[in-house]
């Protein structure tokens, strides 16, 4: 920054910049979302689709009415939980990519409630506890490997994801299989299902579980001593250790908490998402919810409250995408939604996006100026 000799234009720019940095987190998420949607639009255009019609269908399918909003929220419920898995561990300074696998085993564990009967709320509660316990158990593997052998959680969680995927494939095919319907597991009995909140939609009481857990994580991380330790360990492990915080404890705790969240995401899908209430062979309802959760965590700025809004946005993308793929003469496949998600995460990786974008605009202007014939003539 030049001190006194700044031109008025510079001062104005700095003022705008200060406003933008004041709004920082939210503005950056919105900018990243817009950037991701633009990348999606460009790709759709290249592949010969009409991006504006597709996005219009998506928007109507996501937030066009009460039914659509209810299904957007329903699609967002597991994403809140898998998003929390990623951000709890990120707050503790680790990249836990294991939500996917922990969610699979959680879902499989929740199916076990079909083998015994209990009165209504208790059956549901037991299922939730099963799923949470399975998620924790599965998350302890990478945590212990990191603790005892120093294995990077990026590698170990991915390996655990693949192992759990095949484990659940096996369970679905041989152990939990419905004897009358070989392509899926036994169904969750009525007494263990989340009650449907809006009749005729997918929205069940699982949303309370997800929002409740998000609030719990918020209180735990920002308003308790344990949470303070976790965040301190994430911000600066050396300083935290010097301050008497046990890094091992925060590490295991955040992994376990993440495991609970991911397990609950599995339960919310099997016990709270009509119409199957079972795991179908190939896990179509579960596949990639864990990875999408990372996008949710990122756009939610790794804050439980931000994640709620981000999950609504991505749930809307998913629900709207399901409408979009049947809309018009040349419908856009649902997979487009994940392309947009990836582009959004890539954009979220850029720190101070609001600062970089004007620089891009400036660079583009400079390029156009040098390439324009007039400038070349002047140069000559």
């Amino acid at each position: 920054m030049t001190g006194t000799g700044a031109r008025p234009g510079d001062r104005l720019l700095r003022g705008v910049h200060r406003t933008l940095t004041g709004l920082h987190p939210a503005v950056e998420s919105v900018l990243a979302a817009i950037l991701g949607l633009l990348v999606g639009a460009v790709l759709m255009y290249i592949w010969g689709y009409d991006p504006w019609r597709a996005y219009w269908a998506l928007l109507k399918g996501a937030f066009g009415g009460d039914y659509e909003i209810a299904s957007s929220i329903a699609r967002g419920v597991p994403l809140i939980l898998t998003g929390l898995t990623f951000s709890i561990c990120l707050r503790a300074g680790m990249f836990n990519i294991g939500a996917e696998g922990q969610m699979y085993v959680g879902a499989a564990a929740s199916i076990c409630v079909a083998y015994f009967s209990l009165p209504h709320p208790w059956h549901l509660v037991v299922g939730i506890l099963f799923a949470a316990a399975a998620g924790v158990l599965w998350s302890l593997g990478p945590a212990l490997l990191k603790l005892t052998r120093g294995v990077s959680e990026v590698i170990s969680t991915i390996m655990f994801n693949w192992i759990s995927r095949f484990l659940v494939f096996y369970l679905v095919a041989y152990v939990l299989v419905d004897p009358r319907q070989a392509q899926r597991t036994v169904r969750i009995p009525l007494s263990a299902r989340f009650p449907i909140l809006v009749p005729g939609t997918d929205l069940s009481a699982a949303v309370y579980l997800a929002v409740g857990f998000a609030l719990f994580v918020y209180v735990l991380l920002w308003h308790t001593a344990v949470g303070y330790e976790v965040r301190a360990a994430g911000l600066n492990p050396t300083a935290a250790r010097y301050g008497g915080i046990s890094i091992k404890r925060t590490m295991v705790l955040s992994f376990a908490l993440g495991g609970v969240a991911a397990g609950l995401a599995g339960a919310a899908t099997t016990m709270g998402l009509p119409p199957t209430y079972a795991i179908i062979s190939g896990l179509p309802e579960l596949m990639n919810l864990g990875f999408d959760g990372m996008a949710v965590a990122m756009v939610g700025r790794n804050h439980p409250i931000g994640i709620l809004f981000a999950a609504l946005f991505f749930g809307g993308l998913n629900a709207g995408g399901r409408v979009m793929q049947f809309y018009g003469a040349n419908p856009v496949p649902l997979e487009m939604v994940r392309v947009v998600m990836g582009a959004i995460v890539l954009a979220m990786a850029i720190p101070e996006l609001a600062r970089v974008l004007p620089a891009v605009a400036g660079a583009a202007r400079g390029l156009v100026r040098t390439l324009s014939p007039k400038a070349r003539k002047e140069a000559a």
Partner: protein
Amino acid sequence: MNWSSILDLLRISLHAMVPITLTAVGEIIGETAGLFNIGLEGILLIGAFVGTLGAKAGGPIVGLLAGVGVGMAISFVFAVISAYWKGTQMIAGIGINLFALGFVAFGLIKLGAPGFHAVPPEGQLAKLSTPMGALSPLIFVALVTPFLAHLFLNRTRAGLILKAVGENPEAADVAGIDVNLTRLLATTFGGAVAGLAGAFLSVAWIGSVTKEMSAGTGFIALATVVFSGLNPLLALLGGFIFGFFQSLATWIKTLPTKTIPWQFVDMLPYIVTLLVVSGVVGRVRFPKALGVPYKRE
């Protein structure tokens, strides 16, 4: 079990080694310069897909080059975000992986059948007939590349510059080295090799592309990098070990006696990766500035 089926296993292992070793060597170059790219999985997947498109349009060589090109393009974006814009490398890598998942599934639907697309026979790279059976010529590329990379890193000025940038970017900067440019070039090279490895999967080995073609190979390559401790020669060994267990899973499934359910057989490469990595970590030392964006004071 007879001699020829063991030869089969060895032959599949040599093929499975290629993508792991190539990707790992590329990542070693990038990590030596200080950028940690976990988007390799996505680059492999997109490389396999774009390689198929290239092979359909202009034959196997075009297919492989298309893989190289798209790998370079993606890692260029990654390097600009991570080096020049000081972005979080992990998150950018996760973004690449998510993007690849969607992009390839989307592209496959656009090409016709969802989830699968075959490379036409004339688009596949011909295999050499050897006493061991048909071997892809890229096996020899994968056998030579680690040695070239080893020479490059330890015997050339450019290799030393790369190490300096990864170990102590401040000192490198003072010595007049452009830290960000060096990292950009190293990572783009790594992406090019990973893209080649991806195209190898579809164009020169399997002969088709599926939406889950990479199946964790990018992360197994990362595990190989950890195993190698940034030594390309050990990456060759690691690639062969991990490739062997991937092939062993495939091979067991072709055996007439099915004693173990296939789901458990398929877990094998991932379990072995975990075991090997947890066995070697601790004695491995990585560049000091790995994963940290360089900012001038």
